[in-house]
């Protein structure tokens, strides 16, 4: 069998139904094989979008997302998406064509050392040197991408090798990777100590992150929280891991989190970190982070434990397996729940004193926060929401109360503008029966607006709700607050005419610039068949609050 066909067989064996990509010279043999393959190839308009679509596909469905690109510029266009998947631990496989083996190292046409370039931003990579390796590498790539701490894996295939004939035998059984054995169980002795510490804590907080989503462990998290009245907060990446409207829910923590969550972290005596990695958006000034707390840290990646904040009780394991054990051990202790009364009184006090709030307008001006609240109502809080990066992303995190996992797809670690639209494409391909809405920023959307064509060509019923504030809003906010209002390069101006742009791509375009029309236009957009762009003109210079200024402590929240 031709090696390229064996590659497709291996993908099929991995259960691949869709891939995203753009062909080119070095990947011609691969595309010739895709011609006959059993999966669908979604042709995007820029390789970066193929990568983000693969991420959106993976984040929405939990399945591995796959993107294809040709050598050189095709592959380098994937880089941002690969880095994004690396930072946010998204299970993805990137397959790139490479120049012929006799050209490698000669600066051949469209040659780029993609395995070299991507080394710091992949979980692992394979450069094929023998066509017979291809099926084996594909299985290994999938195994590595989806197990342990998920992440991107790259397979780079020289053009001449993918054309060669090989003996193809379907591969079954676990791939042989002597240096790769993720530890998932969690040490029971450590789990017992953690349970005891929790039973003795008077001001505990459960701090959950993206690991809970990766592990599909939101049920298990809820069980643990229910074993006593533990207050719960999630990171940006963990939203939906705990049902937002819930009496134990404190809201998101961190830079734009709620005061209740951040103050609770600040005063906690025990913080149980569950699949969360103490990012600097959470800790702020490290030396003043949670100064009274001891830390239980549960993570599948041992290197995350004590990387930023030294753990007192480290537990290496899959939260899906560790949490039920922890809950069992905790329940067995029959701790006196009244010890938490005082803690809850304190938290209730913050909740009352510092709810999320914004100034409503009395005229027809649309506040961006209102736009998200209206979006929440229009979608019954149940859509898959993708987002770009900026203020709108933070308002979505604050005001769209995610109740289920895998419904909030955004770029947290890398903060990649332009993530939203291609991620929505990927999510819709993965979950055709779900409502998929991209909350876009006008600065972000224009970076990837060529992908309107992809959605139109594939007849994907996605909606883009554009929060149009005419600015790189988040950067404008920083220039206002921390750079003496010296506004530089942050105005977008009125162009383009988004409705016309959408229509040019075959979308429906709707403009909304009056508060009274907001609910109605969202309803129309959601009810209209096919892709729709809703251009919502919001307040131009609203700031996103509350906020911990960069490098400050939780206590110093402003707004």
């Amino acid at each position: 069998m031709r090696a390229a066909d064996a590659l497709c067989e291996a993908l099929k064996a991995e259960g691949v139904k869709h891939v995203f990509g753009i062909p080119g010279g070095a990947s011609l043999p691969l595309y010739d094989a895709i011609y006959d393959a059993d999966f669908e190839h979604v042709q995007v308009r820029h390789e970066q979008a193929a990568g983000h679509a693969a991420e959106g596909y993976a984040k929405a469905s939990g399945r591995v997302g796959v993107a294809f690109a040709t050598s050189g510029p095709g592959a380098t266009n994937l880089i941002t998406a690969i880095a994004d998947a690396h930072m946010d631990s998204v299970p993805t496989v990137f397959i790139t064509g490479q120049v012929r083996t006799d050209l490698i190292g000669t600066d051949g046409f469209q040659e780029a050392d993609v395995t070299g370039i991507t080394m710091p931003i992949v979980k692992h990579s394979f450069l094929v040197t023998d066509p017979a390796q291809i099926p084996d590498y594909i299985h290994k790539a999938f195994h590595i991408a989806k197990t342990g701490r998920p992440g991107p894996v790259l397979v780079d295939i020289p053009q001449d090798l993918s054309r060669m004939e090989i003996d193809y035998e379907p591969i079954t059984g676990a791939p042989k990777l002597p240096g790769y054995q993720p530890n998932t169980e969690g040490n029971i002795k450590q789990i017992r100590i953690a349970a005891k510490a929790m039973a003795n804590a008077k001001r505990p907080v459960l701090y959950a992150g993206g690991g809970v989503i990766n592990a599909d462990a939101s049920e298990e998290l809820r069980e643990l929280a229910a074993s006593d009245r533990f207050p719960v907060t999630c990171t940006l990446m963990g939203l939906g891991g705990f049902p937002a409207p819930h009496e134990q829910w404190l809201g998101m923590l961190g830079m734009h989190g709620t005061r209740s969550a951040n103050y609770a972290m600040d005063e906690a005596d025990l913080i149980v970190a569950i699949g969360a990695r103490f990012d600097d958006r959470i800790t702020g000034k490290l030396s003043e982070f949670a100064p009274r707390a001891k830390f239980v840290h549960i993570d599948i990646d041992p290197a995350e434990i004590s990387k930023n904040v030294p753990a007192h009780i480290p537990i290496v394991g899959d939260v899906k397996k560790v949490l039920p054990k922890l809950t069992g051990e905790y329940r067995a202790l029959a701790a006196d729940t009244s010890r938490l009364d005082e803690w809850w009184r304190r938290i209730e006090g913050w909740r009352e004193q510092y709810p999320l709030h914004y100034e409503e307008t009395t005229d027809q001006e649309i506040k961006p926060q209102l736009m998200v609240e209206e979006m929440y109502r229009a979608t019954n809080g149940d859509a898959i929401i993708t987002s770009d990066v900026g203020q709108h992303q933070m308002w979505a995190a604050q005001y769209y109360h995610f109740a289920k996992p895998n419904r909030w797809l955004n770029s947290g670690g890398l903060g990649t503008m332009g993530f939203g639209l291609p991620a929505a494409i990927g999510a819709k391909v993965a979950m055709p029966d779900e409502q998929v809405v991209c909350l876009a920023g006008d600065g972000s959307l224009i970076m990837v607006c060529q992908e309107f064509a992809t959605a139109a060509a594939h007849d994907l019923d996605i909606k883009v709700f554009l929060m149009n504030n005419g600015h790189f809003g988040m950067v404008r906010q920083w220039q206002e607050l921390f750079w003496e209002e010296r506004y530089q390069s942050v105005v977008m101006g009125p162009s383009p005419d988004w409705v016309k742009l959408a229509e040019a791509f075959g979308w429906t375009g709707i403009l909304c610039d009056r508060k009274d029309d907001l609910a109605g236009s969202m309803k129309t957009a959601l009810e209209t068949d096919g892709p729709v762009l809703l251009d919502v003109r919001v307040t131009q210079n609203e700031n996103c609050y509350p906020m911990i200024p960069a490098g400050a402590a939780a206590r110093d929240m402003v707004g």
Partner: protein
Amino acid sequence: MADSGTKDILDLDDLRAEGGLTGRRHLLSLLVENRPGVLARIAGLFSRRGFNIDTLAVGPTEDPDISRVTLTVDGAVHPIDQVTKQLHKLVNVIKIRDMDPDTAVAREMALFRINAAADNRAEIIEFTQIFRAHIVDVSRRSITVEVTGTTEKIDSFERMVRPHGLIEMARTGEVAIVRARPES
């Protein structure tokens, strides 16, 4: 859940955080898959994470599919725990041993080309004998000496000959292996 937790008191104040700096030099011995790019991954990891490699030696092992990488890292500057955990994440790294200096045999080899005019030639030859080193090359103006031993021994040889005019020096970096226990 036979020996499930009892309701013992565990005072949170008694908990101690793990990790931190050890303050000493660490000799890490890695068994890695013998394939292209593995060394680049290790070197890239160090530079990306801001860890500094003091010495590095790479070579084959008794198994042709496996190479050994021996490197030394300063535990006073870098948290060794983080270094080894990050190394473990590399899929091609099979095994890591943080060698205990008391139970490991570690050796390094070095070549020194030293100025050796008539007036100091005798002294250099004398040093060579004291250090159980070998003269491997001689010319009218210089002598080349091969020294094998612990890093400290090579350091002190260097200190001895430097005043005579050290023209060139090449050191391999340490390699190490665990000592067999006396009874085995």
